[in-house]
């Protein structure tokens, strides 16, 4: 078929798509390019240098913020994934669940409310019951808003899975725990993994809630970066940003590959 006669073809779409992808990636490329600039003024290019990477890696405050973020994200990921997994099992596999829809809505509630509202509400609660520990505040709040992100992929995976294998396992006298561990969990693992990855990234990325709840000793990475940006752009900030961009791109690729493998296995049983 000649392209000019293809009725599904709209002229100008190709160039628009090219422009679109340049638009998506150019801003990130600008940060990466500036991070190698020797000059202190980010916009003035004076030569190639990796100096700012060395100074970023020697930055104590940055490393402390990274440690806080990783700790909070790790705990929040484990808590939210476990809660999401048990809720998904109960909602999809449970019998006689009353108000199934309501239970799902409760798990997904954080998605329906603006984050800033939840953040200040949690701040008021913590100041009323006098929870001063920054890490504890962050872990509780992050676990709550990460749960729906862990829940949705697990739920989708569980819903797409037939009961046959679990029934077979039970018929072969496997107890509930063995069935769950040897049959259910391996089958839904891609969903659990995607859910946990999402929860981890959402927690690492969070600014609004962390900014409200963190205390002096518990500054997370985005809150620290925000304070750096407020102090003025610097090449060291660009170096930090570049490292973080690369880390998240690698993490995202791994997560998407695992999820893709999961769906392919699912398609050819």
């Amino acid at each position, binding site marked *: 078929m000649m392209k000019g006669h293809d009725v599904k073809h709209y002229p100008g779409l190709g160039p628009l798509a090219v422009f679109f992808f340049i*638009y998506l990636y150019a801003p990130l490329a*600008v940060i990466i390019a500036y991070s190698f600039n020797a000059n202190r003024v980010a916009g003035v290019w004076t030569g190639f240098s990796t100096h700012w990477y060395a100074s970023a890696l020697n930055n104590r405050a940055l490393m402390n913020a990274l440690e806080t973020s990783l700790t909070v994200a790790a705990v929040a990921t484990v808590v939210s994934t476990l*809660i999401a997994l048990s809720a998904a099992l109960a909602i999809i596999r*449970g*019998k006689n669940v009353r108000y199934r829809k309501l239970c799902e809505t409760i798990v997904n509630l954080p998605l*329906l409310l*603006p984050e*800033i*509202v939840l953040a200040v509400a949690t701040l008021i609660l913590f100041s009323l019951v006098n929870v001063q520990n920054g890490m504890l505040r962050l872990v509780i709040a992050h676990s709550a808003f990460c749960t729906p992100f862990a829940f949705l992929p697990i739920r989708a995976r569980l819903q797409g899975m037939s009961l046959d294998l679990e029934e077979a396992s039970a018929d072969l006298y496997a107890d*509930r725990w063995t069935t769950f561990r040897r049959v259910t969990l391996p089958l839904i693992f891609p969903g659990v993994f995607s859910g946990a990855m999402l929860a981890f990234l959402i927690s690492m990325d969070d600014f609004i809630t962390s900014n409200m709840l963190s205390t002096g000793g518990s500054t997370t990475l985005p809150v620290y970066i925000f304070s750096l940006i407020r102090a003025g752009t610097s090449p060291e900030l660009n170096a930090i940003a570049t490292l973080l961009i690369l880390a998240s791109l690698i993490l995202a690729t791994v997560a998407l590959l695992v999820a893709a493998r999961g769906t392919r296995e699912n398609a050819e049983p």
Partner: protein
Amino acid sequence: MTESALHAAAGGTDRSPRVRFWRDLSFWGLLPSWLLMGLALILPIAIIAAVSLATRGAHGGFTWDFNLAGYRQILFNEGWTGELEFTPQYLLIVARTFALAGATTLICLVFAVPVAYFISRQPPGRKAALVYLVTLPFWVSMILRVYAWMIILGKDGTLPRFLETLGLPAGMSFMFNDGATLTAMVYTAMPLMVLPVFASIEKLDGTLIEASHDLYGNRWVTLRRVILPLTAPGLVAGAILVFVPALGAVLEPSLMGGGKQMMMGTLIQLQFGGGRNWPFGAAIAMTLMALVLVFLLVMALRAARREDVR
């Protein structure tokens, strides 16, 4: 066979241990999520609702004397003698919030539809790669995606320097206005729009497009009368995913808009900084939440009605 029928076939009567197990599981399995959401979500929201009706304390914080001062302050300024004077300053912030969130949604839609259509027309391998490329920036930290636009638009930024080489005056800055905020909001929201729109365009039956052309519909008519109506659920899903978080935006206005171009999110945040007005902040937070919930409710009702029509 439905799930419950399978259960019945395999599990037998209600008294069998299997069925009892699944019932126990539904209680114990849901309990942790109820506890977490109850304590970390429903309780705080109930408290902030109460605080929005409380009285501002003399030294920050609040006292439990209930009145509507927090809400009144959104519209009126109380003078020294207690007379009320209408002040549009906060109403202006509400209007800006809606205007920016609406504009973000519209701009994202206008770009997402053709791009999603283009991607859906590619061969499978390239299609998967392009979807991956759309998803990827979404995984990069939000604050960094906003920061990228600060170095592009700011003083000594990429764009002013580029314009300088074209002979335009030096030292131009595009920062600290609504346009800068909008630029960052559109950029951060774009993947959220493209993905659901792509998902629904992908499902579109190509023979319907051909049928439209057979009936002498040109490309424009086909787009307007066939493609857009059939992909409406995806467009609506994308619009919700973009519009709702945009209403609560904080990072974009506080970094790109500067101190004066506030949105509801930054106004709320400001009231909870050291010793500001908590009941007023709580009242704006409740207003924002109410607006979002009403919007979601309307969307859900419309979706339910569409289901009924089918």
